[in-house]
């Protein structure tokens, strides 16, 4: 395994996360857990009436990979539609499987810093925790 993963982007989002905390007017909240590592995050999103993600925040504890990954994700999806957020989520999962195209990586922007997770099977569940949680939240609101 290489240590490329612990680069500037990941470390910065881990040590000084932009979105850690709460948002007062969240419209959806969900807890995501990795029972085997004890990671858990509480993800909050504010989705506007037109389906735009207006704000997001997370709380909880976990390793640098899970914390940075969710912080980067929130950066990426604020201002986007739910559909676009789910599309990015799909591209992120593709990247984790090692199947993303260079265009996909471009769209994933800072999240592409987690590309090497595809070579670290033990850490995949850390990287996808926030993304899975978001996916579940957004799909749930579809059902409403």
């Amino acid at each position, binding site marked *: 395994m290489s240590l490329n993963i*612990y680069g500037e982007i990941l*470390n910065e989002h881990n040590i000084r996360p932009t979105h850690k905390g709460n948002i007062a007017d969240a419209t959806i909240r969900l807890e995501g857990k990795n029972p085997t590592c004890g990671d858990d995050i509480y993800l909050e999103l504010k989705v506007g009436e037109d389906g735009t993600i207006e704000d997001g925040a997370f709380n909880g504890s976990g*390793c640098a990979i899970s914390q940075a990954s969710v912080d980067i994700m929130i950066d990426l999806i604020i201002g986007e539609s739910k559909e676009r957020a789910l599309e990015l989520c799909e591209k992120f999962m593709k990247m984790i499987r090692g199947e993303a195209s260079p265009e996909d990586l471009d769209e994933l922007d800072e999240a592409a810093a987690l590309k090497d997770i595809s070579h670290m099977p033990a850490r995949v569940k850390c990287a996808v925790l926030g993304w899975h949680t978001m996916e579940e939240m957004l799909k749930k609101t579809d059902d409403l």
Partner: protein
Amino acid sequence: MSNILKKDFPVFEKAPCVYLDSAATAQRPYVVIDAVKEFYETMNANPLRGLYELSMAATQAYEEARECVADFIGAGSPGEIIFTRNATESLNLVAYSYALNFLKEGDEIVTTVMEHHSNMLPWQMAAEKIGAKLIYLEPGEDGTITEEEMDRKISPKCKLIAAAHVSNVLGCINPIKELADRVHKNGGVMVVDGAQSVPHMEVDVKELGADFLAFSGHKLMGPFGIGVLWAKRELLEAMPPFLRGGEMIEYVSLDGATWAELPHKFEAGTVNPSGAYGLMKAIGYLKDVGFDRIRKIEDELTARIFDAFSEMEYIHILGSDDPKKHTGIVSFTIDGVHPHDISSILDSENVDIRAGHHCAQPLMEYLGVMNTARASLYLYNDEEDVDAFVNMIRKVRGIMGYES
């Protein structure tokens, strides 16, 4: 200095690594790996059943292993040694066959908050089914369970105490003799989880004062899938079988059955003779090295880790300040760095440590930590391993983007 015993372990040549996770499972020496192969090549048949030579050879290997284990822990007779899959199964056997049948509503079961889940969940189950009260002894920060704590928690209603001989997180040795004396005064029994002690120190069940002792073969360099439960004969004779099936009966009719003699009453189904045979060879290897030498290796290397860690103020070691009280187990945290990241960073240089809750979540909560990293030593480790480990630990915070 390098450790001459390393050459006895093929893994260090074939998959080179700095292995510091022996509390999870030990590496196996050639003698054990060869013994398993030898069993399958020259003795492979279903033991205890066949009346032909090969089956008798398998039976002999299996029973010889039982005698070896009995001798190793000072059991009264080989009949007191039950082969299981691992310590977890051994402890469950005691909970199901002993506790559920011999404890009653209103009795108290005492254990400690530092138990591995395998010595906690069976007692939670038993207490709930029986209507017994489950009480937890709480150690001090260094892992010590004081007399006062025992006075407070162990009442005359306590009929079973279950405790780890050595904690898999703190490495401390628990006062088993003292606990045993207290429960025996109530006519109760002492159950000891020896998973972390039997590989590292001489354990004599009589001196220990135990009534039940459970341990795993794989932590003392034996094969996976073979474990041991020792218990006093009179207890085993009174207990009903745990699992029912083949080769544990005396006579079966459509209406019921009578049970085989000890130890077979507790070994339903086809047993694991190659595992037992390998375990015997592991015990032989362990004895050849000797516990004094093991202790010396572990204590010196633990002290070396403590010395190095003392210069890094962002590292916190769990448990005693005295390296001699750790049985080669060093659990620690690094400020600002999650243990899983520590482990991944060390893995980049093939330094293998454990990170997580170590199957002791209640202890983690009690100590106020979410997770820890753990380096655990065994007889094949050496100063080079410790130095490689410490050098990587020094780099961790820098790699994670901290300035110091």
